[in-house]
């Protein structure tokens, strides 16, 4: 058997997933020994044209990170899908929309207006906006179309596996690559490199009783580093987030609540809905007025419960009637 052929690409992403791949350190050499990387913009000098020229399905595995934000992302996603046998959504953005997905709370035009005009740090006297086609004396320049909403990878192409995380833990990436190399793959559509159990399962913090009278913002209290965040009134998405980022979970280890980047556990489709359900259920009050007050302590439900998953959520984006 010849060496496997890999492609690694990023859509609307920060490059953190690529760094996570690099963070496999010397193990990267093992990957290189087992596989040829045909395309990886952050590291290698291959161009889109090189990909276009490849035969269909000539790439064995494509690791696609980043969300689909514009027509270029979509185009390349489709291109790579066509050329790849296995498409892996790498990281939260590809799987869920990720942080760039928060843009789905805003209008497309509002984003453009602020970035190119309204923002205090923008100096654009002529009010120039990026154009899809710009005519220059030499010809026409083309920029991709900026979509109305951020999409997840599987909203534009078929995805075979999901490798969650923002970014995915390097060790998990390595495990998955090894599984691919050894042909030891789970059924199509599976989430790999993560557990079926939610994060709480591997959380070392002590859980006593889940009854909360106040929700705090992290800067508002000194919290007990040994005890469950939720029980102290700090919103932690651990219960509705897949575990597996590391053991113990990495944010928890750093004394911060889980923010949900590993996405929903297997039986959940809308992570935010499930999390808000759990959070509201632990409110310890039977007084409608007090309940209202306690809930007001959660200042940004959407940004809290859908921080990484807005485009993947059932409602996907804000509605502007």
């Amino acid at each position, binding site marked *: 058997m010849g060496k496997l052929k890999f492609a690694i690409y*990023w859509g*609307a*992403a*920060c*490059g*953190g*997933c*690529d*760094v996570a791949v690099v963070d496999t350190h010397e193990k990267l050499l093992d990957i290189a020994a087992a596989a040829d990387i045909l395309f990886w*913009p*952050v*590291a*290698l*000098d*291959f*161009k*889109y*044209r090189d990909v276009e020229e490849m035969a269909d399905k000539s790439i064995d595995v494509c690791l696609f990170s980043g969300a689909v*934000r*514009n027509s*270029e992302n979509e185009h390349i996603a489709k291109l790579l899908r066509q050329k790849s046998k296995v498409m892996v959504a790498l990281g939260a953005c590809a799987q869920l929309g*990720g*942080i*760039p997905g*928060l*843009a789905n*709370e*805003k209008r497309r035009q*509002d*984003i*453009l207006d*602020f*970035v190119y005009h309204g*923002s205090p740090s923008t100096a654009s006297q002529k009010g120039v906006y*990026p154009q899809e086609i710009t005519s*220059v*004396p*030499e*010809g026409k*320049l083309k*920029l*991709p179309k*900026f979509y109305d909403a951020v999409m997840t990878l599987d909203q534009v192409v078929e995805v075979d596996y999901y490798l969650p995380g*923002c*970014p995915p833990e390097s060790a998990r990436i390595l495990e998955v690559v090894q599984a691919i190399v050894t042909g030891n793959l789970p059924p199509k559509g599976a989430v790999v490199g993560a557990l079926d159990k939610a994060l709480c399962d591997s959380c070392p913090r002590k859980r006593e009783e889940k009854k909360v009278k106040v929700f705090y*913002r*992290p*800067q508002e209290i000194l919290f007990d580093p040994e005890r469950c965040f939720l029980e102290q009134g700090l919103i932690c998405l651990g219960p509705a987030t897949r575990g597996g980022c590391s053991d113990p979970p990495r944010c928890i280890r750093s004394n911060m609540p889980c*923010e949900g980047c590993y996405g929903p556990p297997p039986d959940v489709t809308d992570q935010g809905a499930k999390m808000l359900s759990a959070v509201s259920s632990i409110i310890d009050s039977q007084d409608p007025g007090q309940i209202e007050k306690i809930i007001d302590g959660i*200042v*940004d439900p959407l*940004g*809290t419960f859908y*921080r990484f998953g807005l485009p993947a959520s059932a409602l996907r984006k804000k509605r502007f009637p």
Partner: protein
Amino acid sequence: MKTISIDPITRLEGHGKIEIFLNDQGNVENAYFQVPELRGFEVFCLGRPVEILPRIVPRICGV
């Protein structure tokens, strides 16, 4: 007129594209650097509680 398109620009963080136009002599007539990427952090950070920002903005660039 000949055009050289460097797409994408590689081995750096972010998305970029360069179009180079050569004249008949084969010299560079003009070159355009383009950034096809926009995510809009400036906007979706607006209105968010301050404590969430340190958890959002690192995702501007992860390299």
